[in-house]
Structures are given as C-alpha cells and as structure tokens.
C-alpha cells in the first residue's frame, strides 16, 4: 500500500520565541527549526504500517520554503522512501495547505494519508479535516493508542492503527473526554494522529547518510494550479502575559483561603 505523510517545518519548541515589535509575527532570526512533533508521529506510524504490510511505500510531503526539504530529509532519515516539497516562500494558511495537499494526493493516489493532528507553531488543527473534505474522503482525527507508551507492543514497534485483513479499512482509537472511541474508516482515508499513538524512532547517522540519496520531487502552487493567497489574515501576535512573582503563604489555612477567595479554583 502507499501511505502519504505530511511534515511541517516549525519553530523548535526549545527556541526562545519572541514577538516582533510591530506584533505582526514572531522574530524568526536565530530561531531553530525542526519537524512538527505530531508529524513525526505520523511518519513513525506510516513506517510501522509499511513494514507490517510490505510491499508498501511511504511518501513524505511538505509545504514550505526550500529549507523545508530539511524536514522531509528528517522523515526520509527515519525510513520514508521519497519526498515531495511544494515550494512556496510566503505564508500559506491552512486552507491553502489543504488545497495543495488535495492536488498532491490526487496525483499520488495513496491508500492512506497520515498527518499530525496539528502543527505546534500555530495549533490550528484544521488542515487534515479540510483535506478530507476537499477529497470527499473519510477521516479519523486524533488517532491514539490504548496501551501505554512503554508497553511491550510499543517496544515491538507495532502500528497503533489496525488495518483490516482485506486492507480496505483502518481502525483508529481516538481520545475523547473520559475514554477512547474506536472508529473504522474506509480507505482511502485521512487519519490525523495524536501524541500517544507511538514514540517516533531516532534517525541514526547511517540512515541520515542514506536519506541523502533518496529523491525529493519539487512542485509549486502554480504547477498544481492552486491559488494560495491567504484567506486568513494574522492581525496581531501577542506574547503570553509575563509571569508575575509568586507569594509565600504562612500556613495551609491561608493557602486554602487564597485558593478559594482569590484564585477561585476551589
């Protein structure tokens, strides 16, 4: 089967993010970038499904500037087979990304598309749902896994998504309030993945070296006939309020009183 995964180039969550003085965006100078962690989980899941269902292929797709090839390489170094970069330097909103992915998916015709449930930069959490809508495909969002991360299954690197015997559908457990909901979706489908689905593997140096030789195809919005003029405009970016100094309370009674009367949490 063919599995397509998406990887977004995002600011490294360990970088110190500062808002630009004009509040239009963040300061990008000196910021490190990496693959969106949820997307790494999607790639990992794709690799596990591929390895359990050979012959299969995993294609990593990114939308972004030329530098986003680095995040595709990261997926290739984890073990994906080839990459596609839809090159565009300017800001693309989630709808633009979804429309670009729709075209790529129509060309590639994968059986399954795995995406991170959201990107950790702007946390929109809509691209996967939009792609499913534009394609008219079924979708399962926030795919998770019942077992704990340290379970033997986890260590055995088994996929968390369950492919049916006839490979015509896939089962996904998704986290809902207070429990798990198990969905079965017909393939082809879009599945977005949550934090607890798996623990992505590290890319080893030999695999990083091998990934150098794997092909990355370059496409453009123009070539795909998609107008990516943003429909969503970022009006203002604000940093979270600075933390104010804490206080020391003399005893538990005062603490309880303050939590109740001032913080209003109990």
């Amino acid at each position, binding site marked *: 089967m063919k599995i397509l995964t998406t990887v977004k180039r995002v600011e490294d969550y360990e970088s110190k993010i500062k808002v630009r003085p004009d509040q239009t965006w963040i300061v990008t100078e000196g910021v490190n970038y990496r693959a969106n962690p949820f997307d790494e989980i999607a790639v990992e899941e794709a690799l596990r499904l591929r390895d359990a269902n050979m012959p299969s292929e995993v294609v990593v797709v990114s939308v972004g500037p030329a530098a986003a090839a*680095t995040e595709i390489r990261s997926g290739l170094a984890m073990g994906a087979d080839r990459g596609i970069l839809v090159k565009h330097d300017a800001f693309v909103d989630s709808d633009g990304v979804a429309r670009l992915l729709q075209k790529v998916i129509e060309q590639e015709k994968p059986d399954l598309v795995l995406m991170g449930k959201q990107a950790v930069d702007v946390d929109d959490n809509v691209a996967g749902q939009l792609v499913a809508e534009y394609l008219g495909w079924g979708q399962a969002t926030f795919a998770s896994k019942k077992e704990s991360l340290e379970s033997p299954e986890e260590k055995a690197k088994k996929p968390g998504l369950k492919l049916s015997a006839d490979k015509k559908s896939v089962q996904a457990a998704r986290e809902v309030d207070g429990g798990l909901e198990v969905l079965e979706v017909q393939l082809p489908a879009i599945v977005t993945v949550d934090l607890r689905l798996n623990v992505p593997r590290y890319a080893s*140096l030999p695999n*990083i*070296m091998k990934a150098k030789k794997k092909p990355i195809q370059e496409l453009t919005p123009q070539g795909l006939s998609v107008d990516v003029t943003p429909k969503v405009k970022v009006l203002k970016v604000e940093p979270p309020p600075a933390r104010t100094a804490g206080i020391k309370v003399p005893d538990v009674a005062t603490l309880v009183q303050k939590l109740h009367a001032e913080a209003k949490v109990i």
Partner: protein
Amino acid sequence: MIAPPFTPEHDLFRQNLRTYVERELAPHALEWDEAGIFPREVFRGLAELGALGVNYPEEVGGSGGDYWHVVVLAEELVRSHNSGVNMGILVQAQIATPIIEEIGTAEQKREFLAPALAGDKIAALGISEPDTGSDVANIKTTARRVGDDYVINGAKMWITNGTRADFITLAVRTGGAGYGGISLLTFPTDAKGFSVSKKLEKVGNLSSDTALLFFEDCRVPVRYLLGEEDAGFYHIMTNFQGERLVASIGAVAGMQQMVEDAIRYGNERGAFGKPLVKFQVWRHKLVEHLTSIEAARWLTYRACDLFARKEPAVKEISMSKLFAGDLMQRVVYDCMQLHGGMGYVVETPIARAFRDVRLLTIGGGTSEIMKEIIAKLVPGF
C-alpha cells in the same frame, strides 16, 4: 575553512542526538554519578544512533560520517550533564578504537572493532602505567613472544572503562628500551591472569569506571598484534591527537552550556530587587567568558579542520586543549559562584561540573605536557 562545514546531515544528526541525550541520558545524570557507573545499555543505545561508529566506514560497522560528525557527537554529549558518560563513550568511539581501524587486520576489525561500534563489546585504551603517563616511551608492561603467543606482564593505570572492558587496545614493550620497543595489541579481558585490581575513586567523572589493571603471564595469540612489532609508538602519538581533540571540543561545548545555564539562573535568581544578570559585575564576567569561549571554539575548529584533512595538527590540537582546559577552570569557578548556595549542592549540574572539569588540565596529557609539545614545535626554543 571560514565556517565549520556542517551540512544538513550534520544538523539532522545533531538534532537526533540532542533529543536522545536529553531524553535518555540527562535525566539519569545524578543517579549514575551516585552509582559510580552508568548502564551498559548506554553504549548500545548510542550505537543504534550510529554515534559510536560515527566516522568509521560502513564496511567495519561504522556510520560513514566524517570528522565533523565526531565534532557534533562530542558537542552534543555534554548535554547529558554527566562527564563520566561522555568520557566512557568517547573512549569507546574515538580513543580506544581508531588504531584498530587504521592498522588492524580484517580479522581484528571483525572481532574487536565491529562489536565495539555496535555497543556489544566495551573498549578501553591501555597505555598509562603507575609510573608512566605521557612519557609513553618508558612503559614497562612487557609482551614476550613464546611460540604463537605473547605473554604479557605488567600493570596499567587510569584506564577508563577499565573495570568492565571486554578488550583493551594495549601498549606493551616487545623490544628494547625506549620508543622503538613498543607494540600495540588487542587484548581480550577474559585472558587468564588478567585482573582488575582496583576501581579508582576519582575527584570527578564519577559515573565512569577508571581502573588499575594487572597482567600476570597473560597469553594472547600473536595474531592480535596491531600493525608491526615495535612500531606502536608512532600510532600511540597519533592516537593522542584524536583523544585531545575530542576533549577540547567537549570542553568548549561544556563551557558554553555552563555560561548559558548561568545566564538562565541569573535571570531567575534575584538579589536586592533585581535579577543577578542585571548586576554589571556578572554581566561583564559572563560576556568575558563568552568571548574567551568563542576564541577557544575557533582555535578548536581550526585544529579539527587540520585534523580532518590529515594535515599536521599537533601544535593546534595541543594549543586548543591547553587553552580550553585552562579556561574551563575559570569559567566553571565563576558560573558556580553565580549559583551561590545552589552551586554547592551536587544536584545542580554546575556543582558536578566543578569536580569534573579538573580533568581537562590533567587527562590526555597535562597542560604542562601540552606546553612542552608546543614549545618543541615553535622555532627558537
């Protein structure tokens, strides 16, 4: 070289290694220091990342990287906040094994190098002796040829990974006195007559096992000889360069981390109504150190560049170890001082670093030895 030639592959290796070190190693820093040892699995875990075989060719189980991948390894390991682990790993990957790759037979590479790079066998380098450190020409451990075996007698001191090494890249005297009588061989530690006499209690690098080893009529087959008989001295001297260089790289990265940690702490910790970093005395002190560290980094990168291109680099490597090692003593002192009382409790990384960094002017050749080497390479003395 105007900038270090880090490619996207180096960056990806760095990113993966950093995540691994921060996630799998750093949380255990204190625990492993207290235990006086770190788990064997650490070798295997790093081997899976290709970090032990980093710049070795794929044919011998290496990762096929270059020397700048070694630089990434030595730089990122410091994030473990455990110098003992870093030393054990670098001995395994860059100090005890390069000689086997350079002059070993295919059989020696298969039997010793490949399992070391896979993390299945732990390696140690056996050169120093109770009476001899950098003065390698005077080692006393002998290997006497008896039939198809060498019979080894003597002692080795300060051997990192020494209590649990599966093999030792061992310097022995096969010929007459002086540097012309020294050979190298691969020594499996299951040989009869070999004993770990003592695990040395050190000032720092507590999680690393350092040992005094005894050899009493140990027999190893002649096929374990590395290179030619009596020709070991030159290879030992060359090997020292790689050892000193990874020490310098790690020192620079370690200092950078100390100052960054100090700045972070100095922002959090206030005194008399303002954060410590807002006091000019600390600001100035820390930026002075950052300036010196930058100088140390470029001297070290210069040495790396020469070493990577196999150009003469002894002077630059000796200078970088001398400079970085001495500088580190001052940097750690001030960063610990900034931490005040917190800097004096061992759960704070800077407190442990204070003990650990003392090794930098001692191990792999003292600062005094570095100065003697540099003096010999500068005309006019």
